[in-house]
């Protein structure tokens, strides 16, 4: 089980460690700076942190000593002439890096390979541990990209990247807002994979258009890589094979949310943190709960043991719920700085004794 958590917040990176049966902040990095995301490269143990500096843009830092010292890396860059063209009527504008919204390691047979998903919608690839980046033009140049649009941001963005553990040529990414795109050939070609999703926020004739699906988060089961879960803008969806996505409508207390986690061995087990739907985005009845299914979405448990059940307005953002490699430990942080950790798949939660800045991402090391 993992004993280390990286918590990316509006005001720095907090490294939590488990000792003497409890979790505590062991050290910090970039205190005061906006840390949008942290990512672990399991192949070499390197940690990466995405800094979203309000004045100076996105930066990427790498640590090879568990966050004690950091070295600045290159960031993805768009070329002159690259344009953001969206499907929601906004005028085209030159593409510039707004945010590295997702960062994942490649396969064990691809040393140095990293994938970075960005706002405004470009997927970038590095083969040298982030010393340089190349825009994946096979995706960027698709005609369908001109129909993508932003969800929560002005421009579209890639927030989820799933690299199949046993075959790193199989890549699935999720875009807000452009559904799920997949490549079976290491990024050489791409196809839309969101068939079966439904967008309640579109006119009826467009509701089942895969390219308008606002996926909030996409996760893949490690040991059953044919199983994907998606928390979508208007619901929860499950994909178990070539038949596409199936809507799961019985998530209690709500189907709305941002985050999802799947058990690494059992694809039927998944966790969500529901909230009142999009125009409010607060917990139902002021109670923070986690919804868990262990049977592929047939039934859900509402987990609340150890979570605040009165006057709680914590929202959990898309990268702020994580499960460790054992599948027993889960952790989530909230937009109001709450942090909870479970040692038993969510049956009981312990609150971290800290008042953190707004939490953007939680990552087990």
């Amino acid at each position: 089980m993992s004993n280390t958590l990286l918590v990316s917040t509006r005001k720095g990176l907090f490294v939590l460690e488990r000792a003497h049966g409890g979790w505590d902040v062991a050290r910090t990095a970039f205190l005061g700076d906006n840390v949008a995301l942290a990512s672990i490269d399991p192949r070499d143990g390197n940690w990466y942190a995405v800094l979203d500096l309000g004045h100076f843009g996105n930066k990427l830092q790498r640590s090879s000593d568990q966050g004690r010292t950091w070295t600045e890396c290159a960031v993805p860059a768009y070329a002159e002439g690259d344009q953001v063209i969206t499907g929601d009527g906004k005028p085209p504008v030159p593409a510039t890096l707004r945010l590295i919204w997702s960062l994942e390691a490649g396969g064990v047979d691809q040393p140095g390979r990293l994938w970075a998903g960005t706002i405004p919608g470009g997927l970038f690839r590095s083969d040298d541990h982030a010393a340089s980046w190349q825009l994946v033009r096979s995706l960027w140049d698709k005609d369908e990209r001109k129909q993508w649009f932003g969800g929560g941001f002005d421009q579209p963005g890639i927030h989820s990247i799933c690299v199949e553990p046993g075959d790193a040529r199989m890549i699935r990414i999720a875009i807000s807002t452009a559904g799920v795109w997949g490549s079976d050939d290491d990024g050489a070609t791409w196809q839309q994979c969101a068939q079966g999703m439904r967008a309640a926020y579109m006119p009826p004739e467009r509701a089942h258009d895969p390219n308008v699906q606002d996926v909030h988060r996409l996760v893949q089961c490690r040991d059953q890589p044919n199983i994907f879960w998606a928390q979508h803008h208007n619901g929860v969806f499950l994909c178990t094979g070539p038949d596409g996505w199936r809507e799961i409508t019985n998530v209690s207390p709500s189907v709305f949310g941002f985050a999802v986690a799947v058990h690494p061995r059992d694809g039927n087990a998944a966790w969500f943190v529901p909230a009142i739907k999009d125009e409010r985005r607060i917990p139902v009845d002021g109670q923070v709960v986690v919804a868990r299914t262990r049977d592929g979405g047939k039934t859900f448990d509402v987990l609340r043991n150890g979570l605040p059940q009165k006057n709680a307005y914590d929202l959990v953002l898309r990268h702020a719920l994580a499960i460790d490699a054992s599948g027993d430990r889960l952790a989530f942080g909230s937009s109001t700085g709450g942090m909870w950790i479970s040692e038993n798949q969510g049956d009981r939660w312990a609150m971290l004794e800290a008042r953190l800045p707004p939490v953007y991402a939680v990552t087990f090391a």
Partner: protein
Amino acid sequence: MAKVVLASALSRWLPESAGKPSEDVALVVPGARLDEVLSGVFERFPNLRGYVLDEHGAVRHHVAVFVDGTAIADKRNPTQMLSDRSEVYIMQALSGG
């Protein structure tokens, strides 16, 4: 030739050899135009380019550049002429804070 002052918010991202990270850093940089002077700064501190300019060479939206007390008018094309006594301040714009 111009005197260039990097505000502490910017200089904290420079290599340690550039000075104390919590202080402004002042440099004397050759060049007759602002873009030449900026290039001289980036030659000395390569990582700084991405902090001051975006990937298309424009001064970042939330970065302010003042020449002799006046904010530059064209952030996309920072080529204005400088005098030998010009002072260039590169700082964080309050709008981005």
